């Protein structure tokens, strides 16, 4: 409902924009009637709510196809980018955070804390351009922009996706590494760590099996919270790297004042965010057998 009200209380008139500058008032009125925008706002809301519940997000004013279809078409690049980013972030951040906690106060720890402040501060798009300039233009290792569907060759797909994913993962790495460090540090102070060491377990096993496993819940939680940052980052990253995903669709829809598409995308993203966090709540059962729902 918030989304609906937010989008309709606007001075911008999509009918006027669609009709173009040369349109007469009659033509604009015709388009407005065709879109159902001439009816009272309460009626519009009733129709809208009924459709959302049945999974119908309406038809795009601009692309003239169903919003649900449109989102479906643009899903693959965004999904691929997000998955790869999370993968890179978790694989880099968790070991780094763990090692930083293990050597608390050492050079790796200080470097990581410095990096995390830096990671939070460098805007995604600035980083994107620095990486494009360095990796693609100066070194010529990877393509500058664009996207190749996974069906058109996995290697090409990977080649186009790696730079955007690395760009996007930096802030995520900063976030996850920080929390991993803090929670592993806390776990390392517990009695059972001393017991494990006293038993003569190898240090690696103490770290992973005893410290990290007990520190898992906050780490998994922050991965879920980070999805919000990730979604925001996707919008920016897709614009910079010219990836035809949902993020680009959002920006294009705003510029075209295509309300059904804007609200469709926002509802979709919010749904994903809530769903992922619900899954993460459920995953606590695996990571901490003491938790029961």
């Amino acid at each position, binding site marked *: 409902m918030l989304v609906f009200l937010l989008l309709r209380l*606007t*001075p911008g008139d999509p009918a006027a924009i669609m009709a173009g500058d040369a349109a007469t008032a009659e033509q604009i009125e015709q388009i407005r009637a065709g879109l159902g925008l001439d009816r009272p706002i309460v009626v519009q809301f009733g129709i809208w709510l009924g459709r959302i519940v049945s999974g119908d997000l309406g038809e795009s004013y601009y692309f003239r196809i169903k919003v649900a279809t449109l989102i479906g078409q643009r899903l693959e690049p965004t999904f691929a980018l997000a998955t790869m980013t999370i993968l890179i972030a978790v694989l880099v951040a968790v070991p780094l955070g763990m090692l930083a906690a293990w050597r608390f106060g050492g050079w790796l720890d200080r470097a990581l804390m410095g990096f995390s402040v830096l990671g939070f501060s*460098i805007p995604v*798009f*600035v980083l994107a*351009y620095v990486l494009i300039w360095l990796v693609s233009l100066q070194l010529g290792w990877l393509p500058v922009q664009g996207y190749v569907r996974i069906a058109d060759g996995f290697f090409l797909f990977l080649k186009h996706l790696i730079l955007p994913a690395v760009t996007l993962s930096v802030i995520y790495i900063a976030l996850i590494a920080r929390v991993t460090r803090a929670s592993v540090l806390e776990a390392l102070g517990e009695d059972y760590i001393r017991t494990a060491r006293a038993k003569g377990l190898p240090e690696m096993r103490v770290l992973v099996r005893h410290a990290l496993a007990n520190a898992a819940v906050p780490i998994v939680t922050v991965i879920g919270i980070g999805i919000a940052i990730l979604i925001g980052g996707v*919008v920016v990253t897709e614009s910079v790297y010219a990836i035809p995903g949902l993020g680009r669709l959002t920006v294009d829809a*705003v*510029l075209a004042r295509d309300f059904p598409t804007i609200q469709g995308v926002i509802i979709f993203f919010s749904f994903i965010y809530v769903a992922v966090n619900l899954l993460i709540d459920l995953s606590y059962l695996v990571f901490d057998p003491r938790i029961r729902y």
Partner: protein
Amino acid sequence: MKVLDNWSVRIGGGVLALLIVLSLAAPWLGTVDPTLFDAASRDLRPGQAGEITTLEGDTVKHVFLMGSDSFGRDIYSRVVYGTRVSLVVGLAAALVALVFGVLCGLAAGYIRWLDGILMRLMDGIMAIPAILIAIAVVALWRASVPTVIIAIAIPEIPRVTRLVRSLVLSIREEPYVEAAVSLGTPTGKIMFGHILPNTVAPLLVQATYVCAFAILLEAILSFLGVGLPPDIPTWGNIMAEGRVQFVAYPHNVFFPGVFLAVTVLAVNMLGDGLRDTLDPKMAKRV
């Protein structure tokens, strides 16, 4: 003072002070009007000399320290004047978020029946990623300085509200609040006179983070082309204009990018330093 002994505060605050001086002294730093352009001086590289036409129609010689863009505008002048816009928008958005957040947080924490309604509303806002809310709000009301400030502030309100609410919930159980209540002090006076002053330290820390995020978000909106109108020189707008020919002229994107990154970094460092000195309990938690 203890706060000034902290190196994060010193460096962050110092850089920030420098940026404020820079933005105030913009007209005297060898800049020209940031909206001036000259077709003869298009796409100059940093350090090249060229000419620029003033509003009176005179052509004057000018050295383009950071080069020029595809309209022949001076990037250096635009970046320096852009500092003003970024700092003002960032501060204003943080202030708006803080005022509404504090009001909502105090109400939710102290007035029981409002708690449920307010916090569900805040949960609703938090379920939508910040950038999407800001984009949606800007799409609604056409971009101008006040609408962009509000658009950036809205997603930050729940964070401030939650912080204030949690602080109020613990402060309201303190003996001095109980004393004030039993003396018959009006609710308003308890909320603003007894509880609010005790939330200042954590709030100040939170405010710096909100400010950093606001500066970042403003740049992102402008960069995507949905932020402030393109004729206002902001770092995001300069980058948006320069991205089209990034491959040939990377300086259009780099200089504002560096300023933006340094500013946000300085504000974040200031926040970290303040947190460590003012609010040691919170420092241990994060």
